[in-house]
Every structure is written in structure tokens, then in C-alpha cells.
């Protein structure tokens, strides 16, 4: 295997109205098999993807959002949500799923995967990546 690269997946679309959110999740899971350094960012309408308690029975579509809860098992635990995007949409971190991962270096302690960051913090993070994939 060649050197590990830093991959950032930028999610900017609401779920269900278009297929972007689900497709992004599929690509993230496939990418997780390649042992790269993966970071996820949720900005703009992408923050709606992480809202909890989806009930899609009425629209006849699969609720794919429980899969976000499995990301920790794939060693994907750097999930950044832009503060400004949440605020513009009347949301707080309490409206989002509680995503966790287990730190094997600390006796499998459960830790939060989601961090709410400001635009400038996220901009800095984007600047540190080798590859950025946008959905």
C-alpha cells in the first residue's frame, strides 16, 4: 500500500430530495476499506443529513441515516459540522444523531465523533487535505 492520504468528503445536500447524500455515504464506506485518513464535513443543507429520527415510511424511500452510526466502526471518527450552517437552519447539535467511536488506545472509551466548528476552522481543515470529494 502506498502512503496514506488525507481524504475530505464535503456534504452539502439535504437527504431524499436528491441522491447526493446517499451516494456520498456509499462512497465514504467504500473508501473506508482503503485505510486512508478520512474526514467528513457537513455544511449548508448537508447538516440536515445528520438530523435524528428520520421516518421515511411515508415517502417510500430507504432511511439510510442509521448507517452514519456505523461510521465509527470503520474508523471514521472525524466528522465536522459547520456552526454557521446549523444556526441558519435553526438547528443545534442536540438535533443531530449522537455519533460515537471507541478509542482502542484508551481501553475502548466511547468518544464523540461530531465536532461543531466555525467556518474559519473548517476552511483551515480543508486546506490541510490531499484529496477533497464534494457531494
Amino acid at each position, binding site marked *: 500500500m502506498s502512503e496514506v492520504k488525507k481524504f475530505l468528503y464535503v456534504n452539502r445536500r439535504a437527504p*431524499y430530495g436528491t441522491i447526493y447524500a446517499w451516494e456520498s455515504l456509499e462512497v465514504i464506506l467504500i473508501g473506508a476499506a482503503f485505510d486512508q485518513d478520512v474526514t467528513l464535513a457537513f455544511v449548508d443543507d448537508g447538516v440536515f443529513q445528520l438530523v435524528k429520527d*428520520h*421516518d421515511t415510511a*411515508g415517502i417510500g424511500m430507504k432511511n439510510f441515516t442509521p448507517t452514519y452510526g456505523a461510521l465509527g466502526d470503520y474508523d471514521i471518527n472525524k466528522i465536522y459540522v459547520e456552526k454557521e450552517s446549523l444556526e441558519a437552519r435553526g438547528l443545534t447539535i442536540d438535533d443531530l444523531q449522537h455519533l460515537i467511536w471507541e478509542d482502542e488506545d484508551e481501553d475502548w472509551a466511547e468518544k464523540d465523533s461530531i465536532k461543531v466548528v466555525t467556518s474559519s476552522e473548517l476552511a483551515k481543515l480543508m486546506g490541510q487535505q490531499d484529496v477533497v470529494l464534494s457531494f
Partner: protein
Amino acid sequence: MTMLHTVNKSPFEKDSLTSCLRLSEDGSTILLIEDAIYAALEGTTISDSIKEALKTKKVFALQEDINARGVKNKVIDGIEQVDYAGFVKLVTEHDTVQSWV
């Protein structure tokens, strides 16, 4: 002439709703479906313009799309939720339908 306006795009991503609000007459009906149900939420940058519209227009939002997106507890008071049958009823009650796609 009574007109039903349907909007299906997120108000944070496209200006379909803004155009609909600007170009719909008083007394007309607006139905928010698919990603446009995000316009029905309390506490957003869009909430005030919807509340303003509620003074002169009727605003509905599709329940199934609200539930799918996990936001049923955040819908602005005054916006009536309808199911698919209610959607059909609204269509039959109006002379024309304009889709702000």
C-alpha cells in the same frame, strides 16, 4: 381563479420559494413538498418570510416529507400539514397548479 403553488426545492439552496412568494397573489395557496419542507421550520433564516406570507396566503406542508426528514417538532405554527390525500384534495380545490421546480 384560485391557484395552488407547489415548491419542492430547499430554500437554502435555490430561490424557488422566494420567487413563489414574490409572484403569488394574496389568497393563493402554497404547498411545500420534498426539500421545500425545510422552509416550514421555526428559527431559520427563512422563517420570517414564511410567517409574513402566512398573513395573506395559506401555506401547507406535506407531512410525509416532514417526517422523513425528522423535523416534525419544528414546524411553524400556522402551517397546516397535509398527507398525500390532502395534496390531491388541494389540487382538486384549485383551478390551476403552478410547480416552482
